[in-house]
Structure formats: C-alpha cells, structure tokens
C-alpha cells in the first residue's frame, strides 16, 4: 500500500487532511488519508464503490458528524485550524465549506427562497434590494438565472433535474463559501445537463475550490485539474492510492492499480 504523489500541485492549499481515519462503529471506513487540495482548483475523487471517497469528502465539512455511529480521527486543517477541534462549531464549518449532493434537493419553497435561505443563515444583513441582488448574482453564477428569472416565486421543485441541481449550487454559493464539495453532482442528470454542470464547475473555480466525487471517469478527466484515486484495502478500509495532475493520472498513471481501475479492468 503505497501512496504516490501526495502533493501534486505545490499549493497554496484550501484544506488539508492529515492522518485522517474515519470509523463507522468499529469498522474503519477510511485510513491514513493525507491530502491537500489546491486553492481555486477542481480535484476529482475517484475509486470503486465502497472505497470511502464520499466519506472522505464529507469529512471536509463535518457532514459525517450527522451519522451517529461515525467517528473521525486525525486532523483537517482549514486556515490553519483543525475543524475537528472541540471549540469549532460544525455549522460554521458548513457555511464556509458548502456541499452539493447527488440528487438535487431544493427545499419545497420558491426558487428565490431557496437561494435567500443560504444567505440568511449566514447572517445576511442587507435590505430587500441587496437580497434581490445576491439572489440574482448567485443564480447567475450557477448558470441558471436565464432559466428562472421569470419564475423566481415558483417552487424550486417545478424545475427540471438539471435546473434543480444548478439551483442547489446557487443555494450553496449564496453563503459565499470557500470550498464546494460535490458528491456525484451530475450522476442523476441527463448528458446535456451533465455537461452544463461540468461547464459551470469550470466557471466556479475562479472563486471557489471544488472537490468532486464522481464515478464517471470521463467526467473526472474532463472536469478536474487534479485526481485522487482511492481503493479499498483487504481490511475493506479505503485508502489513497494515487494523487496527481488529472492529465497525468488519465494518460500515464503511476500505479498499476490506478491503471487497472480507470481502464475498467476492475471496480
């Protein structure tokens, strides 16, 4: 078990995991993860089902805390502070590290309210005009404004799957996070909607650092700057196998295991 190319970019880094181990009850789901993610870059987390990549992703905004039997060991440094320290409020972490899920999950509220909610919980102090501007800007940044500008007060659930997912991205960026974690954000979408999300991710990296879990090798190859490949060890714990520039990982991976996985010979 050798981790290759621990640090492909040289930084600066938005977030860093050190000796990260995550347990569900007595089962160790991921082990000994050391990873740093470059600022304003897109990093894809890939690997076979059960290798712990989503668990690792959720560790970066303490979403695993919501699973009662989960336990996290190790350090996740964000601005030099371990987000697992006792004095850190996980809600505060999640405001700065947003998340987009596999299945679009807009609230059963209007499109406007879906986006405004994020800003409100972040302590937004502006007036109605300021909020209108923020909602529009977030929807524009999420490349969904043109689709919804004439129906801002209709239910978010009235939109198509691809539009709902972009609405969820707008909601995530309305809190002005620094990182956005995406857990298979396009796997429930049709090919056109998928490509729109991928284009959107490219636009978003100007302002955000993005981590994306995907099962789609072509998506990882197309959409990311760096790729981290995880696999499951014989004890079923996920571990990091290889981490490198996406161009290199998908044309000339260093690890034979990575080669076998991305060429579809296992997993």
């Amino acid at each position: 078990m050798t981790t290759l190319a621990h640090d492909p970019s040289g930084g600066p880094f938005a977030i860093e995991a050190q000796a990260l181990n995550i347990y569900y009850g007595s089962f160790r789901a991921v082990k000994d993860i050391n990873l740093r993610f470059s600022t304003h870059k897109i990093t894809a987390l890939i690997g076979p089902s059960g290798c712990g990549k989503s668990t690792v992703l959720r560790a970066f905004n303490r979403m695993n805390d919501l699973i009662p039997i989960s336990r996290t060991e190790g350090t996740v440094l964000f601005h030099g502070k371990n987000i697992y320290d006792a004095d850190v409020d996980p809600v505060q972490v999640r405001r700065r590290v947003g998340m987009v899920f596999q299945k679009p999950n807009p609230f059963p509220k209007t499109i406007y309210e879906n986006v405004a909610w994020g800003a409100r919980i972040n302590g937004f102090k502006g007036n109605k005009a300021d909020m209108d501007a923020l909602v529009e800007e977030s929807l524009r940044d999420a490349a969904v404004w043109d689709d919804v500008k004439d129906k801002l007060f209709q239910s978010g659930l009235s939109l198509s799957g691809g539009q709902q997912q972009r609405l969820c991205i707008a909601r995530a960026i309305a809190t002005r996070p620094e990182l956005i974690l995406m857990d298979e954000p396009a796997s429930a979408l049709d090919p056109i909607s998928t490509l729109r999300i991928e284009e959107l991710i490219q636009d978003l990296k100007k302002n955000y650092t993005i981590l994306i879990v995907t099962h789609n090798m072509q998506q990882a190859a197309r959409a990311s700057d760096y790729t981290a490949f995880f696999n499951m060890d014989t004890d079923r714990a996920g571990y990091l196998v290889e981490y490198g520039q996406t161009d290199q990982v998908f044309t000339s991976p260093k690890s034979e295991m990575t080669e076998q996985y991305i060429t579809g010979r296992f997993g």
Partner: protein
Amino acid sequence: MRQSFDRELQRLQAEILRMGSEVEEHLTRVTTAFVERDAYTAAQMIAADTSINERRIQIGLDALTLIAKQQPLAGDLRLIGAVMEIVGELERIHDYIKGIGKISLNIGATPILPAFVAHMPEMAETAREMLHLSLKAFVDRDRDLAQRVPAMDDVVDALFNQLYADILAYAANQPQAISHSNQLEWALHNLERSADRTINICEWVVYMVTGVYHEMSMGEYEAPPQ
C-alpha cells in the same frame, strides 16, 4: 471485464504488424529491383502503395471508432494513440518505397553506379531491420529495444554519406549525367528518410510503454550534407 475491447486492441496491433511486415518486405524488394534494374518488381511496388494507403486509413478509422465506443484511458489510450501515429509512419515509409520504384522506372535501362549496387542493399537491409525491431518493440512493449534501435541509424547515415559523395563525384566527372545523378540522390534520400520514420515509430513505442515522449531522431538529413 473488457474482453471485447481487449480483442479489438489486439486486432489493431495485429493489423499494424501485418502492414509493417509488408512494408518491410517491400523495402527489400524495391531496393533489389532498383539495383537489379527490375522494372516489373519496381512497378509492383508502386502499385502496392494504393493498398497500403487504404489500410492506413482503415486502421486510423478503426482506432477512432474504438476511442468513440470505448473511451480508452491510460495504457489503452496510449496504445491507440501509438497505433494512430505508427500507422502514419508506415504509410509514409511506403511512400518512400513507391518513390524508389518510380525512380527505378525513371532511370530505365541506364546502368547505375557500381557503388549503389554494392551498398544500397546493405543500407536498405539496415533500414528494414530497424523497422522490424521497432515493430517487435511495439508488440513486446519493449522500451529498451525501442531505445536501442535509433543507434542503428548511424549505419544508414554512414552509407548515405558515402553514396552521396559518390554521386557528387560522378556528377562532377560526367556533367551530362546530372539528371541521372539527381535520380540516384532522390532514391538515396528516400531510403535514408525511411529509417528516420522508423525512429519516429520507436519514439511512439517508448511513449506507449512509459507515458513519456522524447525525441530520438536528429533529423540530420532534412537538408543535403555539406
């Protein structure tokens, strides 16, 4: 898990090998025809170029189809990339063979320089052996062999220099034979370039195996020697 894809990859490699073997054989045959003034074989080698061109296109299209259908990555992608490059190099080598055939017909019944009769087959045999080994390196995924082959080009280059000097001396002594000398020089150049193309094949084999491309050809004879 990807048996049909693996079969397609093997088929592509077999096609390259089949085409490469034919190019090898034609290199020898056209050179023998050249020194033996065998117009019939020279004409056959010219005609064979059509089929080589067709196969080059077919292999290229098959490779593109495989990319579209299988979305290859990593070693698979490098293999298909190498196939697309190598098939182009083989096709160009056969263009040189066709060129030598045409020059042979251009020269007609005129006897050629004895030095050509003496050394051109050796030059062609070295170029053929280089091609053979480069294709072996391709099939065996043998980086070391692919890296050794380019050194053999020194033999080809030395013979090129020697014969080129002979042509110049011949032309200087018999100015009425300038046109004939020019034909010989073109044939010589074609042979030399075919070995350079083989070095390109070696470069793609190394890339295919290692993922790293580096140029091994010096491109010495893109202009005549001084």
